[in-house]
């Protein structure tokens, strides 16, 4: 592609074929073509562009809150759908999507609480045995055979309600390593 400013000349410069062709190429290259999300109309005085955005991204673990009820869109931990009360969080053909009750959220001393996934592991094999959605005031303190990964944060408001912040955007993987007296839990996007 020609660098347009390089086509500028000084008084007395010759109009070489290279310059002319460069400008012709630049004119052609400057034509406006309509890509995704763009609508356009060519008018005598120019091109009118209209833009429309795609719908919001429906990612895994997306939390929807209505009043004191929260639902969480389908998401997996280690390839298995996370559950709430034993029911997959997106529901099944026989059971509706489970609702997480946020009428009395648990908060820590900073006024923060989390919607989290609590992963339980087998004490001998260290393999995941369950992944359950919980609302908690702390992400730690669940012993060495369990671990919590945050999905979203609730921040208590002075008005008595709360603000919500989404934290997880992807399906997750988890692995637990046996240490000396401690277990190391790692979570990463699947």
């Amino acid at each position, binding site marked *: 592609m020609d660098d347009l400013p390089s086509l500028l000349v000084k*008084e007395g410069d010759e109009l070489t074929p290279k310059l002319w062709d460069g400008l012709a190429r630049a004119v052609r290259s*400057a034509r406006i073509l309509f890509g995704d*999300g*763009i609508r356009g109309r060519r008018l005598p005085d120019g091109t009118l562009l209209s833009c429309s955005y795609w719908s919001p991204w429906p990612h895994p673990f997306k939390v929807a809150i209505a009043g004191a009820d929260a639902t969480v869109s389908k998401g997996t931990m280690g390839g298995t759908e996370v559950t709430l009360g034993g029911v997959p969080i997106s529901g099944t053909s026989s059971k509706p999507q489970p609702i997480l009750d946020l009428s009395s959220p648990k908060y820590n001393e900073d006024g923060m609480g989390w919607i989290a996934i609590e992963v339980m592991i087998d004490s001998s094999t260290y393999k995941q045995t369950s992944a359950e959605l919980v609302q908690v005031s702390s992400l730690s303190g669940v012993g060495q055979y369990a671990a919590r990964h945050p999905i979203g*944060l609730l921040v208590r408001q002075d008005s008595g309600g709360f603000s919500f912040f989404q934290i997880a955007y992807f399906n997750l993987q988890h692995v637990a390593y046996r240490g000396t007296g401690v277990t190391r839990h790692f979570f990463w996007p699947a």
Partner: protein
Amino acid sequence: MNLFRPPADLWNDWVRKVMKARALPGFGVQTFVTPEGTIVRANPGATFLHPWKITTSWDTTTAAWQMVVRPGFVDGLPPKINGTFITDADMPVLTAYWRNPLEGSIGVSDDGAFYTATSEGYPKFFETLGVRTAAQDSRSATYDPSASWRTRELRACDIILSTPRVGTIVDLTISSSDSGSTITGGTATWGDTSNIGKEFKLYSSEKWTQQAEPTALEWMLGTYVEPTVDEIKLATVYAVSPPDPEDGAEPDSTWVLYTKYFAFWNFVYSTQRPRNRVNYNNITLKTGIPLADEIGNGMLSVDNDTAQEIQNFYNATSFKGKFYNA
């Protein structure tokens, strides 16, 4: 060849008209320039409110650019700005501190002459906006006639995520004498460990530089300074001036701000685990013949000393932490 010589003004006017007709990407729009035309498409990414997304605004009270960071999380915790959580209803802001990425620093060459070193530079995107050419090394500078139309100024500011970590400072005093070198004193200091893994903060910096970890040689010598924080650069905010700004102009409400992100997702933070110590036992020769043992062990001592140094290096433990996406 008989070539046409049009008035330079007329030709340059044509060129400028074509330049003016080009589609440039504004907010929420992407452009792809091809020989057959410029494809204009909506950029939904511009409206995606990812963690750490920065909103800039001109504060008329303080006459400064301020930045609000959309909450991002480390281990599920929101960081603080000046002691306030970024999830707080009051929404703490960062104030921009600017550096000039166009100016090169002044250096002195081997022959004692002053020169201007190559500047930091900037992303190529800003060339199309008309930002002036960054300073090049004056010893190899070449005139760039295509840049004469670019007169806008550029400033930059970095946004950093930081957390304290265990960092040791070991400083040994070694004295030499005829009988050899001996350690006659030394200090070991630990950084503030009270908030490790519990507190993360955001700050803006004119120019952020990653703190260097001790080198292998420093570890082996036992005299080193470890950083006491783990940090990661989240974004660089650039301010572009109007064309032909006055000399010495600094970002005000007439400048336009753009953000280049280095992080789009939340983080998990983890420090290294201390390694289990390895005990090294010297290799010794036991033949039952005292003289042979003495000679043999003397020869082995060189290898034993080397092995001991390797063991010291291996046992040296760093608590450097890492941020990774989750």
